[in-house]
């Protein structure tokens, strides 16, 4: 019974932002299992919360898209359709797991696992609440990117192992896309690192907590370079997670279903789990870096709700935005995708870095606001001009057959 009571008090301490929430539970655990218990204690909530969130998101997504398209969305299973994920889950579990004969059995089997593991690892570093960061690594951000870069390998394994031209094509497209969007992703995050000076995510989140006196919380998104960095980070995250405008690899119309073509049943669900968890991880990172992690938007609201509530509220809004984007934007062509990454995103992120430097160096507030905004707006327009389709409505020229 002792451990149960410890667990409850730990839960309470965690939910109410108290320092070192694990202490009560760990005391109740015999000495030599303590480190194992603490590990389990920090992993368990992640494994419970985020797959659940994944489930909810699938439903929310379908309902949201429905609503956007003037229809109801699933409302059969459960109250207003919210048990739909259970139905889907059950379906994937019961579905026959077909493995193509020509497939490379081992790699085919490993691929979904190799995809999900790194994504789950990325959650280890995200600070969900004031002291709810599972592992507070000094090089947290580096860990995040190191691990998330492994997903490309898994995607390739999936695509290649199923021995199918379309899936290989989808996999290579996905890898190319993820590789070329990783650079802007890292660079966008870099500007925040430059300002805060540390790589550890909890320090970054702490740096954005509002001082009691001020009105607006000092989130980085409220600075010009922060806003631009946030936008670029979101676009890159969108591409990294192969979602909405950038879901070329699974372009149903062109190559049927991309790299998870030859998967069915639970492995297929794992891919989706991986994709959505990747989405949550990168939006979690975006929140930590730009939207002030677990801080309240305004100083006076800081005390109202526990910190993790803010984190998940922001996560919810970001997910809503992703769904919203998915409902609106058509798929991007491959060369436009690459063009956007190399011609627009990377220059813009470098410029955001410059703007951040400028922001850091310029003393007076109005001056640095004007300078940074001017720099970024100018760059955005110029680089934008490069990408905008040049519609020259010249005078109509009539040519008659002579």
């Amino acid at each position, binding site marked *: 019974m002792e451990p149960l009571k410890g667990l409850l008090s730990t839960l309470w301490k965690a939910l109410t932002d108290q320092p070192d929430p694990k202490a009560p539970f760990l005391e109740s655990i015999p000495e030599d299992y303590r480190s194992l218990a603490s590990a389990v204690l920090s992993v368990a909530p992640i494994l419970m919360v985020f797959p659940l969130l994944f489930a909810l998101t699938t439903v929310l997504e379908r309902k949201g898209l429905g609503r956007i398209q003037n229809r109801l969305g699933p409302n059969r299973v459960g109250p207003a359709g919210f048990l739909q994920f259970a139905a889907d889950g059950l379906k994937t579990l019961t579905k026959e797991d077909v493995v193509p004969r020509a497939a490379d059995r081992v790699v085919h089997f490993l691929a979904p696992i190799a995809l999900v593991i790194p994504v789950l690892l990325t959650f280890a570093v995200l600070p969900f609440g004031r002291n709810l960061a599972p592992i507070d690594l*000094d090089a947290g951000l580096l860990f995040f990117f190191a691990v998330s870069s*492994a997903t*490309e*390998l898994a995607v390739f394994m999936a695509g290649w192992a199923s021995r199918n031209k379309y899936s290989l094509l989808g996999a290579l497209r996905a890898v190319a896309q993820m590789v070329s969007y*990783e650079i802007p992703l890292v660079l966008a995050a870099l500007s925040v690192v430059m300002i805060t000076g540390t790589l550890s995510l909890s320090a970054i989140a702490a740096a954005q907590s509002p001082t009691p006196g001020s009105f607006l919380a000092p989130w980085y998104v409220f600075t010009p370079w922060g806003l631009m960095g946030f936008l670029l980070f979101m676009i890159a995250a969108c591409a990294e997670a192969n979602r909405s405008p950038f879901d070329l690899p699974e372009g149903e119309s062109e190559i049927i279903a991309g790299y998870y073509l030859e998967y069915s049943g639970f492995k297929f669900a794992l891919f989706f789990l991986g994709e959505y968890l990747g989405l949550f991880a990168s939006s979690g990172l975006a929140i930590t870096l730009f939207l002030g992690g677990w801080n309240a938007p305004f100083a006076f609201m800081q005390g109202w709700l526990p910190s993790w509530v803010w984190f998940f509220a922001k996560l919810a809004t970001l997910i809503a935005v992703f769904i919203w984007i998915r409902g609106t934007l058509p798929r991007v062509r491959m060369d436009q995708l690459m063009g956007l990454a190399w011609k627009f995103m990377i220059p813009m992120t470098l410029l955001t870095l410059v703007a951040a430097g400028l922001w850091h160096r310029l003393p007076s507030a109005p001056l640095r606001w004007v300078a940074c905004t001017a720099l970024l707006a100018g760059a955005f327009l110029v680089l934008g001009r490069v990408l905008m389709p040049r519609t020259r409505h010249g005078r109509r020229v009539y040519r008659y057959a002579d």
Partner: protein
Amino acid sequence: MEGGFIAMPTDVILWILGGLILISAVMSLALRNLIHCALFLMVCFLGLAGLYLHLNAVFSGLVQALVYVGAVGIILIFAILLTEGGGTETGSHLGSQWRTGIGLAVLLAFALLGAVSNSPQTTQAARHTEEPTVREIGLKLMTDYLLPLQTIGLLLTAAAIGAVVLAMQEPKPRKDETP
């Protein structure tokens, strides 16, 4: 990943990591199918990353993971695919005088192991200093090691551009090869 992550004695972890690294290294060189070799190489690199983390060199472990597993792995696989290595190799995948090669390698192994076993260095106990923070690394990198950093930067850009230029050239249709 702090030292002694799980209550198990540390050298058990060492042996596991060591074994993992060596086995995957051997497998990555022995298998016929190139892609498998590449994947095993990735496993070996991850093992190494784990080893560095175990040695409290967190930054280098993560760099190893990021650079090797993230970047080099992908290039390797792309290269394999581009050189039609996808399928399993026909015929013997071992070079002509592979026996002398492996013999020499074994000879070298014994020589170096001999050297390692009786060198005075090894008797010193492992010292557990706290791992350097990223800020320290950054500062030292920017101050004491600025020149190597810049040269490495230059080298990397040169390599990147060089690789692109090399790989971009269209193959000239050779005389004996029907276009």
